[in-house]
């Protein structure tokens, strides 16, 4: 980049050298896919030894969580440095050394709401890939209306007794621990009786069952809690809930903001990281001579570039301390709707080849089907529009 300051361009050179020296070259040119993601956890087995080497090297430097403080296993980078790190990773085609819901969601919630002891206990387990987390939010009766969760946690003195069912728990069958929203006060108004509880999945009474989607196999599961005993404390200063008891909705809301940004940000990459233009150029040249497809592709490119700038602008604003608040609902709404548009375009551009389960474009069809969930999971588009109109535009209730 032409506009780096001297300090940042030194950082760019150093971090590029570090990536080259620590990420085995064989990993750097492999196509990315669901199978090449390293999730970590107690039961994790690497596809190959290079993945292990890369993850361990990254852990040593704190680069599995570049922005987190070094005391918790991060690298303590600022936003500008992190952006350069991501750019160099993309340029050098290096895969992420470790991904997890711990890094994306629980970590940010603990950093904002956890006790110091909770942070020191749980965060290094996340950055080191030792514990894999999953998120227990939705229930069969609590989808868009998430605050109506009914999974009960009864106060039994030194422990909670938990009964109920979660749904859409991604990778529940692979995770070691779950962070879940449970009702700890059934008398209070619905937002005021929820706690955010951390539960070991090996506890007796926890079971999971995978869900098949229209797109085929999925990481989603149902998770059942049948008389599960969860201790109230995991040690000195380490309560089993994050934030105060009955104030879990605050933590959940904070975390949903992260989830929305993640889903909207994730809408950028597709088909092994190829851009729309690259994908279209790889097709039969007749495709782009179709005026409708060609016009849709141009519009999508305009919107998607401007959306990318907006993601950066909002991140900078959040970073500057001015906050984005509920406007992040816009990113989730727009990013997911745009991703659906993108896949509709790719499907039309691919013609009959696109409808094959495993045709010349690989997993295009299941990916297209899967995008239909983007505007449902993490808050539907309609809920996002409600949030914008009520909280940002402050339109009247009646």
């Amino acid at each position: 980049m032409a506009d780096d300051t001297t300090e940042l361009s030194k950082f760019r050179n150093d971090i590029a050298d570090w990536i080259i020296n620590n990420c085995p070259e064989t990993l750097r040119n492999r196509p990315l896919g669901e199978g090449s993601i390293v999730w970590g956890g107690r039961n994790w087995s690497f596809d190959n030894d290079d993945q292990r080497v890369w993850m361990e090297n990254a852990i040593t430097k704190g680069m599995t969580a570049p922005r987190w403080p070094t005391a918790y296993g991060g690298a303590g980078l600022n936003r500008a440095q992190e952006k350069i790190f991501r750019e160099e990773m993309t340029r050098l085609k290096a895969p992420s050394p470790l991904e997890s819901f711990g890094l994306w969601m629980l970590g940010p919630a603990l950093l904002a709401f956890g006790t110091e002891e909770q942070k020191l206990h749980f965060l290094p387990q996340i950055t080191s890939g030792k514990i894999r987390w999953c998120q227990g939010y939705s229930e069969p009766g609590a989808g868009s209306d998430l605050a109506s969760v009914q999974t009960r946690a009864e106060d039994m003195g030194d422990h909670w007794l938990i009964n109920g069912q979660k749904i859409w728990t991604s990778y529940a069958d692979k995770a070691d621990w779950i962070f879940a929203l449970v009702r700890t006060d059934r008398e209070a108004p619905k937002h005021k009786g929820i706690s955010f509880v951390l539960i070991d999945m090996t506890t007796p009474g926890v079971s999971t069952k995978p869900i098949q989607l229209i797109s085929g196999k999925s990481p989603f599961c149902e998770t059942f809690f049948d008389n599960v005993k969860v201790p109230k404390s995991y040690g000195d200063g380490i309560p089993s809930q994050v934030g105060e008891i009955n104030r879990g909705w605050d933590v959940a809301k904070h975390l949903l903001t992260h989830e929305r940004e993640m889903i909207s940000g994730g809408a950028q990459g597709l088909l092994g990281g190829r851009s729309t233009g690259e994908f279209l150029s790889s097709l039969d040249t007749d495709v782009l001579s179709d005026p409708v497809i060609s016009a849709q592709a141009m519009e999508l490119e305009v919107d998607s570039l401007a959306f990318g700038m907006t993601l950066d602008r909002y991140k900078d604003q959040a970073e500057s301390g001015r906050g984005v608040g509920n406007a992040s609902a816009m990113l989730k709404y727009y990013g997911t709707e745009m991703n659906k548009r993108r896949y509709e375009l790719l499907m039309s551009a691919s013609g009959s080849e696109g409808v094959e389960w495993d045709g010349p474009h690989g997993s295009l069809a299941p990916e297209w089907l899967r995008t239909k969930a983007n505007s449902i999971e993490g808050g539907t588009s309609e809920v996002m529009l409600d949030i914008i109109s009520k909280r940002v535009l402050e339109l009247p209730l009646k």
Partner: protein
Amino acid sequence: MTSLLETEDETLLRDSARGFLNDASPVSALRANREQGRPFDPGLWREMAQMGWTGVLVPEEQGGADMGHRAAGILSEEMGQVLAASPFISSAVMAATALRGAANGRASDALAQIAAGESIYAIAVDEGPKHAPAKTALRAEKSGNGYRLSGSKTFVADGSSANRVLVLARTAGEAGDTSGLTLFDIDVERTGLSREAISTIDSRDHARLNFDDLEATGEDIVGELDNGFATLRHGLEAGQATLAAELSGLTAGAYAMTIGYLKERKQFDRTIGSFQALQHRAAHLFSEIEITASAVINAGRILDESPDQATLAVSIAKARATATAKLAVSEGVQMHGGIGMTDEYDIGFFMKRARVGAEWLGDYGYHAAQVAAARGF
């Protein structure tokens, strides 16, 4: 890393521009201009010159304020918000940028006059209903030591009020080539130039310019012979980015009126803004506005930092701003209902200016195609 956040200096500039324009040129001033049959208020233009706005892109040596393209964008956003009419984009942005690139003695004097508000420049490029600089057919034939210009230009913004015009003429090649074009700087009083005002829906100045064997000399050439497109390109891109900013401001103005109306108008014993059908449309509009704002800021930043690589950023901004303004004014009129259709109410002025701004300096399709070309498809 280029940040799209507004700096403190930029916020100060915006606040002072807003304060000034709210007093000096509210939307009612546009209505008054229309009633008086004048495209803009010369008094307003003089005040803009005194505040340094006309010299926003002119170097300090020529008496300019040299604040840069993002600053010009902020001023233009504020003007767009209240539909303040002036030759700002034609003269202070496009002509200043093109002349600055030429940098000879005469261009230097011209820049000083632009900064002082003494010269008003118009840019004469298009000859048909769509923006297409390469299609220039107006010929400048070699004649002795000079040239003779013949042909017509249309949709020349500020063409009737300008005292000078930068005209793109063909000195070689065929219509369709970007090479073989030359940019001339012509006094509007010169024999052989006639101007016809075109009455446009936005009540602003547009004109057709007819060149009939107009004599020009080598002195009148801005930049290099046969390479005028390169000189003008920077000016056009600066204009496109600033026009995108104007449209973004116009969008903000129309949007604020509409949201205000949704919060106040009652039907069926409810405030109409409480209807989810309208809430979701307003929230969608908000989303489009936020995304366009990023593209507009980005275009200004890139023009300030690396003007030679600004085509993509500028075209994203102009395409987005065109589309979002269209959405904002359409939703604005619809959500106002019948009153939105009346001439007495201001929302219609926003719709008319948005349509003119959509066409000027390249429509959505022109800029989307530029984006696609820059992105390799």
